[in-house]
């Protein structure tokens, strides 16, 4: 039985906490990270490389099941079953910032989704009939640096989706969904860029995007995740490969240790570098970053995670590189293999807390130095956790800019 005082405190807590509006639940991100964590558990439990490979294979297989089932999750009575998706063809120039609109019908109901750019607030926003309008992206940062199109997550609560900024050559983007529906997106100009976007109900999701200039195909994307890789017309989408690039163990205090594994998955998403760590008696963490083969070709660090126990550098090397040497100061050095994955070389390196790279160099098979430098290799991206033991939010920034941390 609560006292009067306690009841008043409860009423105040109800009022204040009850009015907190949460952002859309990041269902896709959580499912994806959950998969990474499961992979980490599996990898940590296994004691041999063969066992690790099997566990990784099992995890990848599980992921495939998960995505397939997630995509077809519309069990009657559990999620509304939308039968027909339609995209509204808008004018070439946006009115009131509206860049994409679609209508879903099914089970005696209809819903309309809209994506619009709000230049005055520097936002890209989306809403579905009857719901509130959500922030889905930063307008200034939604750019397309020289590609057919660059995609951004655009989903809102219960409605996964993407929006993209496309090049001036693109006149149409054909979409197929896992429900075998076909949609055509026509770019709409707004805020000095050309946009396409699509939301789908939770029971369906986009499977492919194909960009056209008139009747000429420019490229296509086949994905379960955020699309990053445009495959040229006629090019066969590669079969999934999973290669362990490096692994190791670092002390984690109190008699515990952290087992880490860097692997690369090559497939329809391009190259995805994955780092998982598992701390004995505690839990796991991991990061994943996908890139197109073009991006992977430029040598340098593609993702870095910085944690209390150390930092992990995940990077690519030129194809002629066999290994890299990192001078860690104080007479200590680390040599890591540049492992080929479908012709592209990858490396993964753990720096213990307090270790710094004084210089580095890349060598060919014969031991000839090919290139190198002082300090860290060129770092493209930082991916780090908001809290030391929580999961990474996969918030990216370019080192040296804005509020990115220094190593």
């Amino acid at each position: 039985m609560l006292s009067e005082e306690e009841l008043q405190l409860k009423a105040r807590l109800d009022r204040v906490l009850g009015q907190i509006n949460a952002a859309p639940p990041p269902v896709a991100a959580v499912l994806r990270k959950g998969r990474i964590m499961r992979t980490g558990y599996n990898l940590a439990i296994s004691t041999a490389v063969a066992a690790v490979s099997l566990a990784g294979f099992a995890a990848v297989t599980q992921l495939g099941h998960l995505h397939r089932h997630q995509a077809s999750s519309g069990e009657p009575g559990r999620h509304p079953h939308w039968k027909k998706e339609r995209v509204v063809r808008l004018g070439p120039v946006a009115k009131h910032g509206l860049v994409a609109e679609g209508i879903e019908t099914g089970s005696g109901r209809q819903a309309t989704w809209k994506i619009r750019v709000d230049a005055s607030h520097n936002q890209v926003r989306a809403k579905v009939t009857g719901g509130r309008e959500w922030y889905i992206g930063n307008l200034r940062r939604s750019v397309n640096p020289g590609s057919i199109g660059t995609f951004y997550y655009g989903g809102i609560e219960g409605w996964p989706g993407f929006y993209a900024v496309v090049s001036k050559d693109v006149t149409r983007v054909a979409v197929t969904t896992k429900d075998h529906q076909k949609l055509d997106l026509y770019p709409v100009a707004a805020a000095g860029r050309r946009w396409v976007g699509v939301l789908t109900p939770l029971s369906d999701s986009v499977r492919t995007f194909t960009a056209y200039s008139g009747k000429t195909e420019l490229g296509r994307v086949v994905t379960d995740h955020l699309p990053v890789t445009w495959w040229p017309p006629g090019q066969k989408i590669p079969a999934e490969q999973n290669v362990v690039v490096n692994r190791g163990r670092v002390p984690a205090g109190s008699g515990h240790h952290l087992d880490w594994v860097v692997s690369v998955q090559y497939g329809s998403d391009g190259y995805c570098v994955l780092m998982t760590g598992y701390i004995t008696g505690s839990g796991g963490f991991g990061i994943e970053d996908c890139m197109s083969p073009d991006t992977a070709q430029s040598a340098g660090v593609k993702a870095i995670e910085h944690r209390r126990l150390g930092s992990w550098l995940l990077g690519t090397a030129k194809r002629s590189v066999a290994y890299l040497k990192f001078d860690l100061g104080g007479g200590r050095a680390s040599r890591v293999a540049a492992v080929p994955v479908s012709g592209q070389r990858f490396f993964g390196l753990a720096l213990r807390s307090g270790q710094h790279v004084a210089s580095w160099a890349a060598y060919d098979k014969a031991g000839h130095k090919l290139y190198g430098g002082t300090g860290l290799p060129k770092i493209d991206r930082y991916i780090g956790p908001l809290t030391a033991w929580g999961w990474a939010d996969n918030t990216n920034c370019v080192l040296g800019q804005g509020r990115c941390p220094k190593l």
Partner: protein
Amino acid sequence: MDGMAADEFTEFMLSRWAGLVRFGYGLTGDQGLAEDLAQTALTRACASWTRVRRASDPDAYVRRIMINSNRSRFRGRRVSEQLTESPPDYPGRELVEAPDERTELMAALMSLPAGQRAVVVLRYWMDLSEADTAAALGCSTGNVKSQAARALAKLRVSGELMNGRLPC
């Protein structure tokens, strides 16, 4: 995780998300951290969903992860960094109504040690019994009682609450 389990987890997440973020807000006083905590907890639950779904109370499991993650947040403060150039600007992130009450109450809550704050949120906001609160925190009911009494005493004399509605 098979398809049925993925569906189940998705439904679980959709139905619990807002409540977990509010719970996280009560623990941290920061919506970004609250969402991060909720995401951390749900990710771990997702990774072990086949086990969690068999638990008698999956909600208690997720709450426990959030509480532990929040404790760990303080241990890992040295590398806690906000990485975005500007924070995500979700609409409605800031309260429109009753900002004074929120400011007062959250300032008072944040002045409490993390353990007492967790007791206040679990016991008085989530309406958990002393036994359930103790289970969520991994301590005894006696400890919950003493923590709650200390928290109330601090809130009673808290400067932030002197102008508030909590009677002395």
